[in-house]
């Protein structure tokens, strides 16, 4: 029994079969990477998981509960946090405020009118927000406007915003896309650091093989909308079907 179970998911856009009977079983505590060449259906699959798209058939169960048809905020309240390809943060707000918002959402739920409480008097929330920034090494940037941060720091902040909610599952959509090698390595170190201190299941959608093999405990390979192989990293490395699917992509 995995924490995330995907069964027979199909999705068709007009004449294109974007997802073809996809099955996925993510074990609790694992770092499960989903790889595949461009256009393999990785993003479609992710969007089906988080409620942005509704698959034509199939079921997705998270922690024993069906999630299909639920809205993004409902899925988050179940314990799924998401990191986007380009960091989605509150650019106009300070780093501190950025981290406090998910704290409030985690404690108070999807909606609460607390118009006469004071943000700055909420010791519990402040403490939590400060702790996570300390842990992520961003405490000295607390008062900065988050839009002015560097790309790497924006990513770091986004991850902090997810972690402060203590999610059961963290979805990462190409967390290092468009990053320089140094930033990529920083992100890998950060994710490994998270893995050491917190037991969070992670699903990583990734293109960069260097990232995948540095992080993943299990790898599934998606090609033309179907899972063609699944296994431990060393098994996948030598898999003939995978080599075929990636033919011409030098990194494997």
């Amino acid at each position, binding site marked *: 029994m995995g924490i995330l179970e995907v069964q027979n998911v199909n999705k068709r856009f007009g004449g294109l079969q974007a997802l073809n009977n996809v099955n996925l079983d993510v074990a609790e505590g694992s770092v499960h990477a989903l790889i595949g060449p461009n256009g393999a259906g990785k993003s479609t699959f992710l969007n089906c998981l*988080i409620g942005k798209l509704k698959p034509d058939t199939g079921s997705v169960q998270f922690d024993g509960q069906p999630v299909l048809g639920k*809205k*993004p*905020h409902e899925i*988050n*309240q179940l314990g799924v*946090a*998401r990191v*986007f390809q380009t960091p*989605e*943060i*509150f*650019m*106009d*707000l300070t780093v501190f*405020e950025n981290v*406090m*918002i*998910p704290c*409030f*959402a*985690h404690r*108070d*739920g*999807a*909606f*609460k*009118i*607390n*118009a*006469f*409480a*004071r*943000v*700055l*008097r*909420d010791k519990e*929330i402040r403490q939590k927000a400060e702790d996570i920034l300390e842990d992520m090494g961003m405490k000295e940037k607390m008062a900065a406007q988050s839009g002015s941060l560097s790309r790497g720091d924006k990513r770091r902040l986004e991850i902090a*915003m997810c972690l402060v*909610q203590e999610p059961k599952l963290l979805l990462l959509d190409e967390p290092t896309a468009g990053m320089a090698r140094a930033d990529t390595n920083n992100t890998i170190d950060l994710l490994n650091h998270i893995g050491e201190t917190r037991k969070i299941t992670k699903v990583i959608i990734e293109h960069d093989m260097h990232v995948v093999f540095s992080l993943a405990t299990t790898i599934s390979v998606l090609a033309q909308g179907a899972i063609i192989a699944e296994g431990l990293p060393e098994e996948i490395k030598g898999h003939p079907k995978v080599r075929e699917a990636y033919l011409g992509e030098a990194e494997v």
Partner: protein
Amino acid sequence: MTLMRDRTLLIIFTLFVLAAPLIFAPTGAAYPDLLQRFAIYGIFAIGFNILFGLTGYLSFGHAAFLGVGSYSAVWMFKLLSMNILPALLLSVVMAGIFALLIGYISLRRSGIYFSILTLALAQMSYVLAYSVLTPLTNGETGLQLRLDDPRILDAAGPEGFLPSTNLFGLEMKEVFWNPTVFGYDLQFNWGYYVSAVMLILSFWISIRIFRSPFGLMLRAIKTNQTRLNYTGVNSRPYTLAAFVISGMFAGLAGGLLASMDPLAGAERMQWTVGGEVVLMVVLGGMGTLIGPVLGAIFIKYFENIFSKINEVVLQGWFSFLPDWLSNFLVTIVSPFVGRGWGLTLGALFMIVVIFLPGGLVDGARRIMRKITGADRRAAKARNE
């Protein structure tokens, strides 16, 4: 630190509002009627800023709630009592219900579609008030008090006189103190002070909302709604709550307008009124605490003072110059004053939007920084 600064701001604001009849005396704006309007439109703008300034949802329909507030208040004067308290209460409640209805429909969309929906719904309310709802609104004539109104609580008034609105006996139009200070004839009026207390209360509520977790969520909606949804927050009820709150402020403002002058007409619901409050908030500084009030004062001042300057007044101003020059100046300036005050306002509005996107508050901040040299100090700190 923020809490301290807010308290100081509230104290300064309170003193400023209470001393307004004295402060505005040199500007020629210190007569009760205009001061009341400053305060009432200040409330309207403060409420609008909670929706527009915090969430970024631009509504063109808030005039409808102002109108609903006025009609409710006048009905209360006709049926129950000339005391303004029950009237204001009904104004706020009715406007809140109306806002819930209109907000529920319009907030199904965002951006320009939301704005258009609010505009359409408000115009529909305006047309309804003019035509179908005539039994309730008295159509084009407007809703007025009559001698034969039932007025359950205080029907026994002197024969032949319309009773005046009051707060437990304090009459709104009464000038209770009329001293002469520095040659200025000051008028302290109950109506203004009732509006002023409401304005201070509104300002305090607005500060609390700005600093609350609720306010933080509203600001988050403005910056990145996608992230907020994926953070587990349902943004729809937040925007609806902000819409209803701002609608209730508009209702309070409408009720106060009717309390100062007990009649209500459909023209108060017209979209130009809803557009004016947008101008006030943008001009003063959207998303700032004090900005909306400054914007409201600015625009109402222009509307009432600038519009009264005519050629004769101008000739008086320029009379010290040689005739040809004075005539020339009068010709140049006169299209921009008097009935043309809107031209000046429009030009000023453009200047503010282009050069001071943060509004008057932004301008004041820049000047302060120039004076104190904070800019230079910050730059120095960065270099070190």
